[in-house]
């Protein structure tokens, strides 16, 4: 499930390598084709030059990438791990694919498809020459098998199943035709139905699905074949020589598991890693040096992701929107962006990930402690007992900000914020938690305030339902309990609106309301900061980011060779 997934990720800046989608490139070799950025002006603006004329792509070589964490397993249906996604995307195929170039749907395992006028029936016609990596043909039976598994309550796939709630049935009129029927129209259905990974029935149908041995050795019909998993160390994928479509140029993709960032940097510098997503610190201090850039090309780009702090509206402190607005005014976002994040981002506006969908009329709130104090006074929070902390009806303004351990940037701005709030008479306690406990607190709505980030790998066509509809306040992603009848109506109607322009108009009004209510203190869109070994070509940056499977390496620069075997 890639495109429509709104994934909540802790505000762990720059450490998520799942942002790597692509490839693109720039020239290199003896003389750099582009001038080296000067250290002083380095860093703020995204760095993604258009690839210059680089010659004809050739096959060969490997790409060594890094995973900051080892995925528990590689079953695309039961996995909710972002790193697993990177790998399953290469090993499995989907019916259709939303192009990373122009966002149009392209055929994959399905050659063509039809949507009924009432948007309730989706029919896919599959190609007949596609096979899994073991030679068995991919048929509609496999599609139905995967669909059944997703819908099966015993499958460990609660997170995906929610998208299929309105999908009623999956029929297989013949071996190469699949027909899905829904009971409600929804503008995302084409993506939901067309973009889940198809798993081979003859393999995963036998044995227990949740704990299937092939969860450690996935078999799919994708561009790459999963070769081996050295537990705790690395995973290796090899190019699928029998792929029905255009084969990628790189023969192998290797994912090294390196948890510690420092260690990862050392490995990169030793050139035992080819690609790495670096932190702002490393970008500014290390990547800017000429000796680093002699070995690596740099790419930075904005990702479809924004960070924020959310305020639990059920708590008395945050029930009043004036208070929430005051909280936003008390966070010096421009300064934090400039210093802690080295300016490698921009202030977020709106709830969507693509500029085309955001309401550009809304401007970020300034940093204004005086106005904040006024708002707090207005809302009834004053320091009546003169102890330095504001109170109202006998309740002091004290709350707990949950944070996720492991992000130094989050730690930094949390204490800075804490200080500023103290000066305004608010006592904030910081509570670092591990991701597991953190999510549990969010899910059980047991928190006062917490930072989070939403992202959409699909970039466009986001649906705010999961986050903003009042029905999601107890069980969905509407952690803060936001509830506004007008917003509810807009969202519900937008789900049925298949005209994108009209939908965006409706969403503009939705964003106005949210802006007024300030359930979140919006923070930033971050840049992904990537260093790639200089030998790779076609490091093009798309809206989704880099796409490594499009990269290639000129013959004379190839480093790793397929041992023995055929002429390749």
């Amino acid at each position, binding site marked *: 499930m890639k495109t429509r997934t709104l994934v909540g990720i802790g505000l762990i800046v720059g450490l998520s390598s799942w942002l790597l989608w692509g490839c693109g490139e720039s020239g290199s070799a003896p003389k750099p084709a582009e001038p080296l950025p000067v250290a002083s002006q380095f860093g703020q603006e995204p760095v993604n030059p258009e690839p210059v004329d680089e010659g004809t792509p050739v096959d060969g070589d490997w790409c060594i990438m890094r995973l900051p964490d080892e995925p528990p397993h590689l079953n695309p249906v039961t996995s909710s791990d972002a790193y697993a996604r990177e790998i399953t995307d290469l090993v499995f195929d989907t019916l259709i694919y939303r192009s990373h170039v122009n966002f149009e749907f392209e055929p994959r395992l399905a050659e063509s498809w039809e949507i009924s006028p009432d948007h309730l029936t989706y029919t896919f016609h599959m190609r007949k020459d596609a096979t899994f990596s073991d030679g068995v043909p991919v048929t509609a039976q496999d599609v139905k098998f995967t669909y059944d598994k997703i819908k099966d309550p015993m499958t460990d796939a609660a997170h995906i199943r929610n998208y299929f709630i309105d999908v009623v049935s999956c029929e297989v009129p013949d071996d190469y035709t699949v027909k899905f029927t829904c009971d409600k129209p929804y503008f995302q259905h084409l993506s939901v139905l067309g973009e889940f990974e198809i798993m081979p029935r003859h393999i995963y149908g036998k044995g227990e699905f949740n704990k299937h041995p092939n969860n450690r050795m996935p078999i799919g019909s994708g561009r790459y074949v999963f070769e081996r998993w050295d537990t705790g160390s690395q995973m290796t994928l090899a190019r699928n020589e029998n792929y029905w479509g255009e084969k990628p140029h790189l023969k192998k993709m290797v994912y090294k598991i390196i948890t510690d960032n420092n260690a990862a940097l050392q490995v990169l510098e030793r050139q035992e890693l080819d690609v790495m997503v670096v932190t702002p*610190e490393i970008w500014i201090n290390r990547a800017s040096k000429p000796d680093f850039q002699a070995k690596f090309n740099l790419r930075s780009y904005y990702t479809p992701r924004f960070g924020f702090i959310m305020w639990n509206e059920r708590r008395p402190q945050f029930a009043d929107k004036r208070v929430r607005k005051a909280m936003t005014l008390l966070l010096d976002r421009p300064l934090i962006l400039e210093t802690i994040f080295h300016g490698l981002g921009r202030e977020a506006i709106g709830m969507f990930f693509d500029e085309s969908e955001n309401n550009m009329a809304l401007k970020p709130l300034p940093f204004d402690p005086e106005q904040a104090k006024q708002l707090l006074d207005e809302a009834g929070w004053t320091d009546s007992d003169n102890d330095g902390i504001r109170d109202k009806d006998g309740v002091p303004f004290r709350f707990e900000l949950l944070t996720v351990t492991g992000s*130094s940037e989050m730690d930094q701005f949390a*204490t800075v914020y*804490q200080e500023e709030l103290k000066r305004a008479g608010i006592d904030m306690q910081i*509570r*670092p938690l591990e991701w597991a406990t953190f999510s549990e607190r969010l899910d059980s709505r047991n928190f006062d305030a917490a930072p989070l980030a939403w992202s959409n790998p699909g970039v466009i066509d986001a649906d705010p339902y999961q986050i903003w509809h009042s029905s999601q306040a107890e069980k969905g992603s509407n952690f803060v309990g936001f509830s506004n009848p007008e917003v509810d109506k807009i969202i519900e109607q937008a789900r049925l609106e298949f005209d994108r322009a009209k939908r965006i108009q409706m969403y503009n009004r939705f964003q106005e309301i949210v802006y007024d209510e300030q359930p979140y203190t919006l923070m930033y869109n971050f840049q992904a900061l990537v260093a790639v070994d200089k030998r790779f070509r076609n490091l093009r940056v798309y809206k989704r980011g880099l796409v490594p499977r499009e990269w290639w390496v000129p013959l004379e620069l190839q480093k790793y060779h397929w041992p023995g075997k055929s002429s390749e």
Partner: protein
Amino acid sequence: MTKHANNIAQPPRRRQSWWALVWRQFRRNRLALAGLGLMLVLFFVALAAPFLAGERPIYVRMEGRAYWFPNLKTYPELRYFDFANWHPAQGEYILRTPVPHAPERSNLRDRLAPPSRMHLLGTDDRGRDVLSRMIWGTRISMSVGFVAVGIALVIGIVLGSVAGFYGGLPDLIIQRIVEVVMCFPTFVLILSLIAFLPPSIYNIMVVIGLVAWTDSARLLRGEFLRLRESDFAIAARASGLTDRRIMFRHLLPNGVSPVLVSATFGVASAILTESALSFLGFGVPPPTPSWGELLSQSQRYVDRAWWLVMFPGLAIFLTVTAFNLVGEGLRDAMDPRLRQ
């Protein structure tokens, strides 16, 4: 009648002169003395922290009013007063702390500044003064060290004395408990427990104490087993004193010396543990200053901000060394075989 009984059961009077003997021997050990000196310095720093580092001055006279110890008391009208940027005018006077920075005062524009006149040990990644944080961090380390060991001592002494004194079944049970707890790799057990509790300095103290008592229990048990058969103990029992009295008034003072040594090492170990916990992110909650937390920060800036790597690490190292030296010195001083 009771007085008489007390007299009979009086333990040998070697206590007082014995400690003097130990001290004399200890004094000869230069390294141990150095360690002791360092320990005292640390004590002082921990106690006097408000007078050593902070933004609120020790004394200030402004606009006709004199304020004593704003660094200790909170004067409501001074609560948000910006002392850092205030300069006394004619007739006004201010006595600042030697390090005029608060440990939590961040200044983002001054992040990661190397040591300078303004910031003697530099600033951290939020622009907070490192020296100030280290001074206040001493409080954390010292308190965790001593309280944790205090808890461990209480548990250890109680269990050890019961085991040594009564023998038999209680001894067997307690020995098993000791063995069980000792089987767990200490830090792993502590980490597991801490990970499940909300971060607070009290939880850390208690958890370390709960895990570290085995040494003193074992030692004291050994001592009690030995002392149980000594003359004065037999005499005490014969004169009908209660068990508790015998244990704690007569046997304990004689058996406590190895426990003291172990306790000293225990403090060093507790301080190290607290630093390790803070280093891993399981320590005191922000913005509380801790040496381990500074070190943890420094990981990201290892090649840029050497002062963040060096000074907290040195502080932990020197503190642990000091306590270890004192412990070593005590042990050597108490060992009759090493007496010269």
